[in-house]
């Protein structure tokens, strides 16, 4: 395995009793990239990540994380990775500064707590106790904890699940910023927009298998899918007969075309001739969501049987 790879996984399998959670997957993560494992709940994302982090033992397969074996070299590996787990956990009664300083002490070559707090944008809250932070701020504090050991590789497990849109944006900006520092990031998520916004490479995982891999632009042949032109025609005007069209449920006419240039030409000529306004004209590239949903099929429904969509305790607990 090449040393330019942060993570290399080959034929990874994990079974719990008769249940095969991960059915032989392969992927590679280059140093400095954001790699996203995208998939529905119960697809095997967290299991895979926890094997890479050393929390769980694989059933079979080969893996290398930063050139180390997560099972054999776990103690050494811990110095070089940062983990933001799926369920957040913070000491409620410690302040931001105290929390980050405490974790810094666990590592041999930590970054300064002050610096890390600034990186995640919590300098104004640094003397605030964790229980007084908003959900987004708590998540950023967790990112700070994961960063303070100066890791080469960061694991972010569903970092924004349960967030409001503003908190998601905040967290995304922080993650983008980390990538600019040259950190390698493994991000698991079930949000397409998150993977699309953040990731350099995406692997879609469903039922324990990788069903597609690529960049946000070409995943699952997205770059080869036809764009769709849609337009609302007034009553009594038929769409140009030269183009194949369908009427959508909203009443607009949709054309799936291979050559946008000539299609637009035909549509505008026809519109001028029939005095049709082009104000409702839209050209839409297939979204990552369309591709994703077609890739995972109806897995969403099936998967919910394996793993209930657990309510996320964003508050660090109740007592």
């Amino acid at each position, binding site marked *: 395995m090449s040393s330019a790879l942060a993570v290399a996984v080959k034929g990874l399998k994990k079974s719990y009793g008769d249940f095969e959670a991960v059915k032989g997957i392969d992927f590679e993560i280059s140093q400095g990239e954001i790699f996203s494992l995208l998939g529905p709940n119960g697809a095997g994302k967290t299991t895979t990540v926890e094997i890479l982090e*050393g929390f769980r033992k694989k059933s079979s397969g080969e893996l290398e994380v930063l050139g180390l074996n997560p099972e054999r070299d776990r103690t050494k590996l811990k110095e070089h990775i940062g983990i933001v*787990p799926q*369920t957040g956990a913070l000491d409620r*009664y*410690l302040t931001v500064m105290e929390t980050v300083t405490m*974790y810094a002490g*666990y590592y*041999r070559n930590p970054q300064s707590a002050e610096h890390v707090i600034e990186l995640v944008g919590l300098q104004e809250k640094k003397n605030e106790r964790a229980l007084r932070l908003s959900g987004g701020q708590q998540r950023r504090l967790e990112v700070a904890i994961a960063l303070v050991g100066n890791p080469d590789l960061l694991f972010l497990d569903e970092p924004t699940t349960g967030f409001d849109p503003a908190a998601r944006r905040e967290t995304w900006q922080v993650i983008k910023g980390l990538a600019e520092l040259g950190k390698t990031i493994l991000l698991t998520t079930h949000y397409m927009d998150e993977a699309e916004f953040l990731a350099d490479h995406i692997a879609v995982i469903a039922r324990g298998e990788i069903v597609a891999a690529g960049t946000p632009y070409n995943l699952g042949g997205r770059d080869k899918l036809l764009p769709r032109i849609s337009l609302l025609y007034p009553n009594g005007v038929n769409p140009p007969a030269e183009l194949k069209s369908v009427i959508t449920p909203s009443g607009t006419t949709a054309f799936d075309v291979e050559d946008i240039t000539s299609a637009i030409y035909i549509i505008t000529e026809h519109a001028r001739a029939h005095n049709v306004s082009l104000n409702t004209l839209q050209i839409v590239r297939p979204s990552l969501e369309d591709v994703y949903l077609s890739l995972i099929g109806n897995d969403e429904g099936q998967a919910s049987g394996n793993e209930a969509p657990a309510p996320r305790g964003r508050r*660090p607990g109740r*007592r």
Partner: protein
Amino acid sequence: MKTINLMLRQAVYVNKAFWRNPASAFFTFAFPIMFLIIFNALLGNHFVRIGDKRAHYSTYYVSAMATFGLISACYTNIAISISYARDEGLLKRISGTPLPKISYIGARVLHALFVAALLVVITALFGRFFYQAELPSGITLLRFIVALVVGAVSFSALGFAITARVRDADASPAVVNASIFPLLFLSGIFIPLGNNAPSWIHWVARVFPVWHFALSMQAGFIGTSYDWTDVLIVAAWGIFGLLASVKYFRWEPAR
């Protein structure tokens, strides 16, 4: 050396968080004192026979509530707070960092010992000023301190061990209190075990560590004879707790 430094450092943070949590600080400290006041109001002027000694109830309860306070601070507090920390994923997060697990556990025990010692001192001083209770001194004090440290570490180890029987944090107060309160009663902490108590109660008391620990504390406060066997039995339970923890302790929440 590094492990010990990390442990001491961690204990400082555990301590900080402890005092900022009003519920745990209040219940740990207020309960023994509150019980001491209530029992003394009810029985304070009477005498109780302990072995060959006749003691004022007030002295008896100073000793008993110091025992109760130490068990709350070590067994109950550790079991409940560790159950919560495990449920919330804090323990898992810690186990993903290079901090040696023994440093983390040691820090919790050290902090419990500190709180227990503080509680025993407060209870003793309270008893001294309000109820004229006698306090240990000289060689008795040294033996007393040995019993206290052995007791604190042993009950902490048992506190860690019981978390293996706690499914999730919501169940922890029930499991932990159900496991300790009957034993406190059966060991004469709240009501002294007289000679005419049923023999099964005496047997239960002899088997478990609470009664033996209470006897060592009584030796300090009341001046009854100090028996190293009591200390050894408490230590044996501590070792049992330690071994059970090594085998069954979980760092991750139940799935």
